[in-house]
């Protein structure tokens, strides 16, 4: 597949000068690539938004939108930020080339373009892009898109940083007897459906699923990317999770299978977020008292017979529209003092 680095890539040539544009396109076609040409940055940007390209060869001085402006637009666009750009410029414009590299261009080619140099630079850029694409594909399979983006932007390093966030724990009530009463294949299918629904609800409210284990999961709201009112986002996600599980249960009951119920615990506050594990195998997670509290609250939903339990910090950030029931101080394992616990009133428990 690395051959793609040498031929058959989709390239965009952006140059206002027709002679330069045709010549560069021809040279690249002779190297075996598919080439599309644009006469200024604005046209190029429209094309880039419409179709996928592997590499952009960019002239600097152009009317409408010049090379600097286009590079600026690419950096600010998450979907185009990683597109490799080779700046084509006459040698006297070396200052401009330096500015372009600072703006994120990968390389430059002096004009008139030397075919040997062209082949080498285009090949190198495409191979680098291919490696990056593969790396990202791998990362995406094992991490959430947010974590993958964060990894891409700041690189991988074990260790954490202090953040303000909300943590949500959820699991399926009475899962073990359920799993024992049905074939393993059915259990896997049940888990996959439940995870799909939960990922939708959590991702839909700006959270990321940090860990999944057995019938449970842990989600973070407010890290790695900050999130406005993360406690409210976590609670909304929890309400949607309950709703989705009810719909899913109704389907199951109709098919003669037992309904499922879940418990959710949420706590908000300071925690340390980052990568934990080894250099070879690590996960993005949060650690701290707040995280432990969220896990305990989730466990307490059984005794409290309420599907969603939250702590006081989460409670205080909720808008009045969210109905909450104060359960009073509850002794929580691992906490010296009793903790104020609140139940979020889901429509089904109302």
């Amino acid at each position, binding site marked *: 597949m690395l051959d793609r680095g040498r031929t058959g890539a989709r390239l965009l040539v952006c140059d206002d000068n027709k002679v330069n544009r045709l010549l560069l396109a021809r040279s690249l076609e002779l190297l075996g690539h598919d080439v599309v040409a644009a006469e200024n940055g604005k046209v190029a940007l429209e094309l880039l938004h419409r179709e996928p390209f592997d590499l952009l060869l960019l002239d600097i001085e*152009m009317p409408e939108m010049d090379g600097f402006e286009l590079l600026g637009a690419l950096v600010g666009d998450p979907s185009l930020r990683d597109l490799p750009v080779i700046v084509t410029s006459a040698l006297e414009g070396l200052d401009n080339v330096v500015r372009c590299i600072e703006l994120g261009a990968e390389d430059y080619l002096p004009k008139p373009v030397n075919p040997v140099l062209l082949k080498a630079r285009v090949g190198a850029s495409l191979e680098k892009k291919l490696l990056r694409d593969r790396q990202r594909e791998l990362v995406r399979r094992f991490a959430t898109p947010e974590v993958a983006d964060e990894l891409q932007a700041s690189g991988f390093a074990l260790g954490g940083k202090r953040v303000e966030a909300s943590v949500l724990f959820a699991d399926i009530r009475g899962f073990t007897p359920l799993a024992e009463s049905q074939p393993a294949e059915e259990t896997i299918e049940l888990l996959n459906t439940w995870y799909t629904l939960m990922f939708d609800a959590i991702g839909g409210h700006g959270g990321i699923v940090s860990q999944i284990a057995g019938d449970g999961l842990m989600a973070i709201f407010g890290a790695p990317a900050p999130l406005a009112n993360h406690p409210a986002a976590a609670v909304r996600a929890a309400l949607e999770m309950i709703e989705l599980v009810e719909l899913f249960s109704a389907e199951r009951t109709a098919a003669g299978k037992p309904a499922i119920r879940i418990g959710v615990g949420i706590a908000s506050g300071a925690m340390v977020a980052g990568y934990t594990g080894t250099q070879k195998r690590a996960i993005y997670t949060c650690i701290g008292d707040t995280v432990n509290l969220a896990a305990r609250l989730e466990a307490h939903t059984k005794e409290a017979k309420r599907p969603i339990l939250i702590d006081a910090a989460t409670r205080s950030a909720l808008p009045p529209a969210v109905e909450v029931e104060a359960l009073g101080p509850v002794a929580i394992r691992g906490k010296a003092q009793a903790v104020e616990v609140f139940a979020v009133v889901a429509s089904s428990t109302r």
Partner: protein
Amino acid sequence: MTAPTIDPTTFDALKEMAGAEFAHELADTFRAEAPAMLAELKRAYEAHDAQTFRRIAHSLKSNGSTFGARGFAAIAKELEQGGIAPVEAAAGAPLAELDSEYARVAAALEELKLA
């Protein structure tokens, strides 16, 4: 001995790289585009539009180098780097010089095509 209007080594290299037919087509494109560019250069000069003046001069220089039109490219380069002021000081002479050099370049490219 005066230098040729079109440097044969450069033009041959272009033909070898892109194909002879393509090289001549490209020269045709240049001859189709250049008059408008020269006119725009003059407009920018008259309007004191320094940015456009430099951009067009830069483009002409770049095209001149592509075909090996060294004299033409050299004049365009001077215009690009010197800007409008020296042209004004010379009462527009460098623009006229660029125009007449272009006429020679166009004729030479035509000749190469027919050869």
